[in-house]
């Protein structure tokens, strides 16, 4: 709904650096988690009495546990490279949304508590002890970071603000100050099996519906099975794929690809979620508990391999962390990578000429591709460096005749976050979400004007949900947003090849 939030007109040209507007976003505050949401994740239910001491103690633990965090605290030389790289700064002008300033909110406490200079001469060192004011700044501005890591690409030292914001959230959770959106959802995934809280009865109904509708449309039966022991593939999708549009259209496409490949597959009602918000709150323990369900399901269903759907941050968790988090996967077939991304699976099938595609099915579309932050900057795909950029584009070009990239300063490793990642996809942060989408909306506007782009495809459930909500604020229609496998789905000629 295009409401009261004001957005500047888009030009498609390089965005100007906004005038600095101190405190512009200082009042932004996500909803607090209820007591039960916190305790379910083994955090104190409410803020503990000696929270300042406990927070500093936790910071000390994290500095010892994650050497990277200590290096990030020590190494910044205030060169300024990062200052104009954050989409939230570009969209809001609030100087605390410059990555260096966001980092300083933690660094000033670090200097006070963990450096000699800060302890002896706090004034000279700009050191500050933990206080109500500092906590309020942390609460607001560490929830104005989508952990997209764009700033780290431009930092000569590679300081990763995402890791600092994860640590800050972990410290806050550890003293009973939790964010509702993430913690409530983590409760649902641990209790029911997915973020949305879709129980097995409802999931079965949803899959049946997809199966029937697909058959009605194409006159060919494609199966969308659940809990089928002995299937070759366990498919782990983000649960938005079972609920929203254009997510479900992508999910329909996964099924067609498996069908054409002649590979049996199943969804699990126990582990029906790829998303893992444990990463957003910096909690290794929670991240492991969420991921563990997937390992259990793969084991119990006796599958040979795990293929995962279009979900950005979870691909980071799966690609970069699963092996040490829930591995080894010695019970799976070692000939396949664990996990395999659905894009890797599809591109492999296309390369082996295992699926017949009719590109003209997408002829009304002029497509561009939005690189999702965690896929772009925290993972890879396939066997080649840059595979995470090339494979989705190759797939799109194989199923569409008209493809064009957005401005090169806004794609691939330089991609801009959708504005809703990192646990910020919640209504009370809509002002931030709309403003943070400005750089992407502007680049999109550029190719809409220059090339008549009418479709922006992507492989992340959060990006899809965020853009369908915020693009209308920029007078860009929501139906512009597409799943990559939705385009695949349209182009697949069912029964056209023998697969594998």
């Amino acid at each position, binding site marked *: 709904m295009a409401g009261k939030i004001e957005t500047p007109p888009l030009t498609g040209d390089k965005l100007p650096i906004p005038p600095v507007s101190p405190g512009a976003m200082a009042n932004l505050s996500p909803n607090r988690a209820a007591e039960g949401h916190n305790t379910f994740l083994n955090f104190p239910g409410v803020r503990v009495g000696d929270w300042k001491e406990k927070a500093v103690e936790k910071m000390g633990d994290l500095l010892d546990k994650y050497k990277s965090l200590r290096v990030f605290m020590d190494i910044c030389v205030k060169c300024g490279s990062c200052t104009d790289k954050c989409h939230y700064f570009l969209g809001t002008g609030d100087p605390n949304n410059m990555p260096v300033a966001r980092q300083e909110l933690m660094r000033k406490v670090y200097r006070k508590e963990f450096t000699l200079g800060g302890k002896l001469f706090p004034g000279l060192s700009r050191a500050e002890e933990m206080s109500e004011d500092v906590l309020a700044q942390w609460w607001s501005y560490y929830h104005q970071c989508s952990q997209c890591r764009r700033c780290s690409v431009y930092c000569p030292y590679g300081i990763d603000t995402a890791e600092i914001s994860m640590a800050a959230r972990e410290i806050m959770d550890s003293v009973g100050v939790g964010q509702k959106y993430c913690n409530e959802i983590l409760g649902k995934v641990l209790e029911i099996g*997915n973020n*949305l809280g879709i129980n097995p009865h409802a999931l079965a109904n949803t899959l049946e519906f997809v199966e029937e509708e697909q058959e009605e449309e194409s006159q060919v039966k494609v199966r969308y099975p659940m809990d089928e022991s002995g299937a070759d593939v366990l498919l782990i999708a983000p649960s938005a794929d079972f609920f929203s549009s254009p997510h479900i259209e992508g999910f329909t496409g996964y099924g067609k690809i498996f069908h054409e490949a002649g590979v049996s597959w199943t969804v699990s009602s126990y582990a029906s979620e790829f998303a893992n918000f444990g990463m957003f709150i910096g909690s290794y323990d929670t991240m492991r508990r969420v991921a563990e369900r997937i390992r259990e399901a793969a084991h119990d269903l006796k599958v040979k391999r795990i293929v995962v759907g279009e979900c950005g941050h979870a691909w980071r968790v799966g690609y970069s962390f699963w092996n040490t988090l829930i591995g080894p996967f010695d019970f799976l077939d070692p000939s396949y990578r664990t996990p395999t991304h659905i894009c890797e699976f599809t591109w492999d099938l296309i390369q082996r000429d295992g699926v017949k595609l009719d590109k003209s099915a997408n002829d009304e579309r002029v497509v561009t591709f939005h690189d999702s932050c965690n896929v772009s900057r925290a993972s890879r795909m396939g066997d080649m460096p840059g595979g995470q950029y090339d494979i989705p584009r190759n797939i799109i070009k194989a199923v569409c005749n008209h493809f064009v990239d957005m401005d090169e300063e806004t794609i691939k490793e330089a991609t801009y976050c959708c504005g809703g990642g990192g646990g910020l996809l919640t209504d*009370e942060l809509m002002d931030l979400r709309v403003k943070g989408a400005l750089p992407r909306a502007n680049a999109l506007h550029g190719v809409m004007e220059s090339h008549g782009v009418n479709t922006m495809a992507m492989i992340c459930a959060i990006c899809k949900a965020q853009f369908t909500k915020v693009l209308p604020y920029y007078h860009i229609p929501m139906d512009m947003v597409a799943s990559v496998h939705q385009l695949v789905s349209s182009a697949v000629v069912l029964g056209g090849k023998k697969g594998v």
Partner: protein
Amino acid sequence: MAFELNGKKYETDEDGYLLNLDDWDKDVANFLAQQEGVDMTEAHWEVVDFLREYYDEYKIAPMIRILTKAIGKKLGPDKGNTKYLYELYPGGPAKQACKIAGLPKPTGCV
């Protein structure tokens, strides 16, 4: 949080969604719709009724396409699409319509 209507108090979450499903009735729906700036017509009620029916059976709101298909069947095929649902509920069929139907807020990557 809470609101009062006809002398009765209704508990809600931070976003104004009813905490207790059984508190819902047509008056409450009309009140919530008014808060949202939605003028309830027969088509709006069809959506609300379907959402409540589905929730009753499945304890969750339906996938968007299940909803659009059901509405298409009731109101005609030209109405069975997301665009029409957004015309009825500009705040989104999942979130705004669920709120007026007295269902919990769907949260996740939605």
